């Protein structure tokens, strides 16, 4: 394997992950969102797996990507069910404003949590497929 690729990857990985979070958090107002963000995160780990090897990528990830799938689905599902607490139909958005340090009041709602669920599922799925395939 190439030393250059490995070294570059070590620096690109956090950059890609940061970018993926950026896309996730900003997606409600600008291009991006859970799916795109999740793909970028998956791409980051995929790059790592290609540059090093699958075992290293799994070690880096620590959590089994299949569990990410389940957790992601759970998050998405739960975000939709929150509406039931307010006696409203499934997936009715529940919003409140939260003051974020340095940015100010930011609307936080269940659709954003739903997007997070999407993010997790996408990461989990892509990594499950790519890592299993690369192990062949």
């Amino acid at each position, binding site marked *: 394997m*190439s*030393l*250059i690729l*490995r*070294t*570059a*990857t*070590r*620096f690109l*990985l*956090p*950059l890609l*992950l*940061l*970018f993926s*979070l*950026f896309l996730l958090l*900003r997606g409600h107002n600008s291009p991006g969102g859970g799916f795109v963000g999740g793909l970028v995160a998956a791409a980051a780990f995929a790059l*790592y797996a290609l540059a090093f090897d699958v075992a*290293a990528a799994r*070690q*880096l990830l620590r959590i089994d990507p299949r569990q990410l799938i389940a957790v992601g689905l759970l998050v998405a599902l739960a975000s939709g069910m929150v509406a039931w607490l307010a006696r409203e139909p499934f997936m009715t958005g529940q919003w409140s404003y939260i003051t*974020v*340090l*340095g*940015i100010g009041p930011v609307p936080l709602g269940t659709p954003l949590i739903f997007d997070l669920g999407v993010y997790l599922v996408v990461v989990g799925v892509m990594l499950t497929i790519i890592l299993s395939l690369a192990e062949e």
Partner: protein
Amino acid sequence: MTIFLWNILLALAWLALTGVFTPGNLVVGFGLSYVILRFAQYAIGPSPYFGKVFDVIRFILFFLYELIASSLRVAHDVLTPTHYMRPGVIAIPLEIESDEEITLVANLISLTPGTLSLDVSADRRTLYIHAMYVDEEDIDAFRQKIKRFERKVLEVTR
């Protein structure tokens, strides 16, 4: 140390990406980056760090000059019917040792039109590059030119 630097850089990148330049956002960015770095600590080994802002700026200017000059040279060759180039694969002995430095040098060489890093020897003592304009008579002159390049990088990193 490197981790700290990288952390700051990532926090700055966060500012740039969100476009909200406030101290608070810097803290948020720092926090996020910290989490990610911590998460990714297997990937980033320990590495010494020496900050030399002045050297950095000087190096950037030098690099830009090289970039534009060689770009024009390649462009000229591309756009004219005859090929002036004298390509070859040259081995460059390396002084630098760390992965990061080798990568930096190799990438800068690659970025410059006319040269392309092909491979690093297993003992990391030699960098093989493909170059478009090699003087047949004096390959060592070419080697020296690249070595100068390497030293400039060393000035920045060490």
